[in-house]
């Protein structure tokens, strides 16, 4: 298996929802596992061995793909303090449409400060931050349904 093909495979895994990809081609076998946000390769046999006349046969590649679960976030926990949803409902960045969001990227928030609103059964619930810090990532979109324990914000 040549380097170009390997790089293509790595890019394929990185860009897709695939969690794990294993390809067997003749004597060569490559397994690419996505973890910590970037794919990592492990080669089971000598991937970089130069093809020899005796071993190179036109064996069709057998691909085993472990598809990502459709109901879970594939990416593992980002680094930092994570604020998770304490309830089931619909996530909103601000108290009403058109109003200023409670927190944006780069905002400094104090412990107990409202970060967002989660609406459940027509009731708006202000969600306070358990931590003080700077908003590094906002993991959900305005108006998106959220479940209990779903990561919402990452604070540094």
């Amino acid at each position, binding site marked *: 298996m040549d380097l170009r093909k390997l790089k293509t495979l790595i890019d394929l895994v990185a860009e897709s929802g695939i969690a794990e990809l294993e390809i067997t081609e003749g004597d060569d076998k490559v397994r690419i596992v996505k973890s910590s946000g970037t794919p990592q390769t492990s080669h089971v046999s000598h991937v970089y061995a130069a093809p020899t006349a005796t071993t190179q046969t036109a064996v069709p590649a057998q691909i085993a793909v472990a598809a990502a679960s459709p109901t879970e976030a594939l990416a593992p926990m980002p680094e930092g303090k994570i604020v998770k949803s304490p309830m*089931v409902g619909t996530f909103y960045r601000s108290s009403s449409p058109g109003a200023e969001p409670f927190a944006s990227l780069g905002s400094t928030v104090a412990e107990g400060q409202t970060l967002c609103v989660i609406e*459940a*059964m027509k009731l708006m619930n202000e969600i306070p931050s358990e931590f003080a810090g700077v908003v590094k990532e906002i993991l959900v979109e305005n108006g998106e349904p959220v479940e209990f*324990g779903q990561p919402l914000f990452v604070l540094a």
Partner: protein
Amino acid sequence: MALFEKVLIANRGEIALRIQRACRELGIKTVVVHSEADTDAKYVKLADESVCIGPAPSPKSYLNQSALISAALITGCEAIHPGYGFLSENAYFAEICAQYGITFIGPSPDAIRLMGDKIEGRNTMRAAGVPIVPGSDGELQSLEEAVELANSMGYPILLKPAGGGGGRGMRVANDEAELNRYYLTAKSEAEAAFGNGALLLEKYLPKVRHVEIQVLADSHGHSIHLGERDCSSQRRHQKIVEEAPSPAVSPELRARMGEAALKGVRAINYVNAGTMEFLLDPDGNFYFIEMNTRIQVEHPVTELVTGIDLVRWQLRIASGEHLTVQQSDVQIRGHAIECRVNAEDPERDFMPSVGEIQYYLPPGGPGVRVDSHLYPGYMVPGNYDSLLAKMLVWAPNREEAIARMKRALTETVIHGVKTTIPFQLVLLDDDVFVDGEMSTRYVAEIMSKWMASKA
């Protein structure tokens, strides 16, 4: 009347899987809720969508009404199936669902409320002409009233919490002295357990079978009964083995009990699946004790002998369809037995056993049905009931069904936790069971014999 497009399954474990299967076969999309303890369960991943509704403790998750409604709203579910236990007999929850335009798959809030109150339930059934266990007209007003009634009815008597269920909090008094001793403790226990200290007094029938009648009713006034299940094999009022038909019920008695059950169903305009529980004495007299306004754990026993899919009908009835099965279509064929395999250690007084299922190999072959959410690697959580699997068999007659169940249980491998299987095998071998002579207290006797033999 169109079937629902999407249903929220507000339960867990084997019944959540059971409901999913019925939905899938009807082309209904499934949303399964789960607590954090059940996030990795395979049946959760099998659903079309899942929503985490809270941490492990039930009050914050499976009993969390607003989380459940919210989950249904954000996923666009038209209906909620509550399964059994949890909120399935909670009239308030059924009302909340209605307020939010979500169909609660079950009867009306009024029917649930009526049958949930043991006093009201008794009175309603008595008025409908259904025989009830002789006892107090309603809540006992005083110890004096209890003593007078007990003396005229004859001992032994049973003190029963009006707001309770599932056989909990009950006390037997064999004479006036015991009644005097137990009355106040029973009241405060009931208050503590159910928030309601009201007590009923009933005649205690010592040698009875627990025989229940399965009913189905649609929202167009048509109702049928699907025969009986004998659930006399109980340990501390918890069923461990159930079967149909009952060895003590002739076709004639079945017809009479079925008709009594339907009288009750019609009196309260009951809709959907339900079960009327009766006590059957050795002379063939039967007495109503309570009604379960939901699908029951042991429903597959009836499905096996009638060929009628009860959960499927629950979904169809709730969406407004006519129940197209006529009473004359209901035939009881062959014999079915169910063993509830719980994660409990029978040698240590059924102490709950938690842990990881390291190896799981379910039984198979002719006439075997397994309803279970188990898989190798499953972590049995400590927060919920201990049911691991329902092992069921069907055979042309009772003798063959017993042999088949023993065969199936012996093939079953569940490694990682203790299970009730060793005790169930002992039960299936016992002369009393084999002769079909079970009554509600005989399991305790078999248990003592077995423990004594191991000492």
